[in-house]
């Protein structure tokens, strides 16, 4: 088991399977939100389902729409359980606050997309800024 420290984030404690890429994130630009998959051809997770995953990505990109979109995705139970970033932008944090989705960023051990692997079992405690990883 690996333990990672990060900046305190938003939301409640969640557990799930990691889906990781050294790429960025926008709910507007990158996702087919109706089917719950990454749809932008250039995205490293293109074609993969993000539903109920702990997404681990570099940073958040793109427009302000993502703030409403996280809330809308969660209302249909077609959302990730949590998103971990090296660095979140303001919009995704605001969206997580409305959607009550778990979100953390700024990891002490360096690039989080290298610290967690797809398929890892991950537990996120945003208030403590503590992530535990089992593989």
């Amino acid at each position: 088991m690996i333990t990672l420290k990060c900046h305190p984030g938003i939301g409640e404690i969640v557990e799930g399977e990691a889906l990781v890429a050294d790429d960025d994130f926008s709910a507007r630009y990158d996702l087919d939100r109706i089917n719950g998959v990454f749809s932008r051809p250039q995205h490293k997770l293109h074609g993969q389902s993000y539903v109920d995953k702990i997404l681990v990505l570099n940073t958040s990109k793109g427009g302000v729409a993502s703030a409403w979109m996280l809330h809308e995705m969660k209302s249909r139970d077609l959302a990730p359980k949590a998103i971990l970033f090296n660095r979140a932008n303001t919009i995704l944090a605001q969206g997580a606050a409305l959607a009550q989705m778990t979100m953390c960023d700024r990891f002490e051990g360096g690039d989080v997309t290298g610290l967690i692997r797809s398929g890892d079992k991950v537990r996120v405690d945003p208030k403590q800024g503590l992530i535990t990883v089992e593989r």
Partner: protein
Amino acid sequence: MKLNDEEQAMLAGELGEPRRWAIDHMMRVGAMFDAEDLVPVAQAHMMADPESLGDAGVTFLEVLSAHPADEIRVAVPMITDPRGVDLEYYRPLGQTEEMANLERRFIAACSKMGILMTNTCINYQTIMPPVQGEHVAFGDTGVVIYCNSVLGACSNFEGGPSALAAGLTGRTPRYGLHLSENRKATKRFVVRQQPNELTDWGVLGAVIGKLSGSYWEVPVVEGLETIPTSDEIKHLGAAMASYGSTPLFHLVGITPEAPTLEAVGGETLGAIEVTDVQLNALRSSFGGRGDKVDVVVFAAPQLSLVEMQQVADLCAGRKVHPDTALIACTSPSIYYEAKRLGLVEAIEGAGGKVLEGTCFYNQYAREIGEANGWTRLLSNSAKIVNILGGYGYQPALASMEACVESACAGEIV
């Protein structure tokens, strides 16, 4: 986070549930970004189209706006970003009654709260531009980057929920670009190839945005030999924000916080040259000569009155190809001016369509593409071609002139 007496009262619910929700929301966001207190804002601007809101978002607004009138009235002037449905023209686009009804419900909720439905992402050209040093809570990344960079105002990217919270309280958490230490340059770029027209400015913004890479970087740019127009710098900023999540840039000798490189702390940064190779690579990744075009779009950002005249002049006496659509999106206030001045007639006389108060990419782009059989899309906006790849389009980029020529030819010229 430190709250004053009035803010404490809001948090305790003494000023009603909507303002309690708003302060609570700001405290969650502020904690993530280590905000120490709240800063008063002069205006709020909310992005909220029905595609991103969904039924869940509209219902959230309706529940909030069902509280007593004195509890829901916004505390500062609050305006809106483009809508997703032009209620005067949605069936021909293949938009459904369900989409229009979400829009109607949202407008009704906002209107009860005293929100002005300006439906524009060019409020800095058309409504009330902020002044240097003024704190505002603006949505739409293009609006924020323009107001920070060109006007010297202070705003973070405020997503819809946070802009709403700012409107209800007249405040926003003091973090990011509300703090002067975060407005200094962190990356220094030198430009050699001078931009000539709107698309060139967009391509330059896209490349710098890509190279900057995150919300927390502030690019400073040297080497520009001309002062861009408001429309040119609007395309520069919109593309930079779209490709890089960049909320602020400085142009040395041009934008107000950077009379010199030293003024933004840029002299200690290593210079990164923006090369012709990078600019040309960004252009050539989108479409090629002879490809068929299904739809030509002028939007993202909405067109100013001057751009409307430019499109109208290019369309005069021409006919758009029967297998190609031409769409221009502008704000309601510009629409009425353009109508009065005969510009809408010139564009529509050539077979184009001017949409009022929407922007193509946030009006159910996937669904209207499928309904109309549009996949090959041409635009002069570097921002829109970046976005629409994820919506099932094959986007291509060309100048405004080449876009109109291509619309008439039915293929990229």
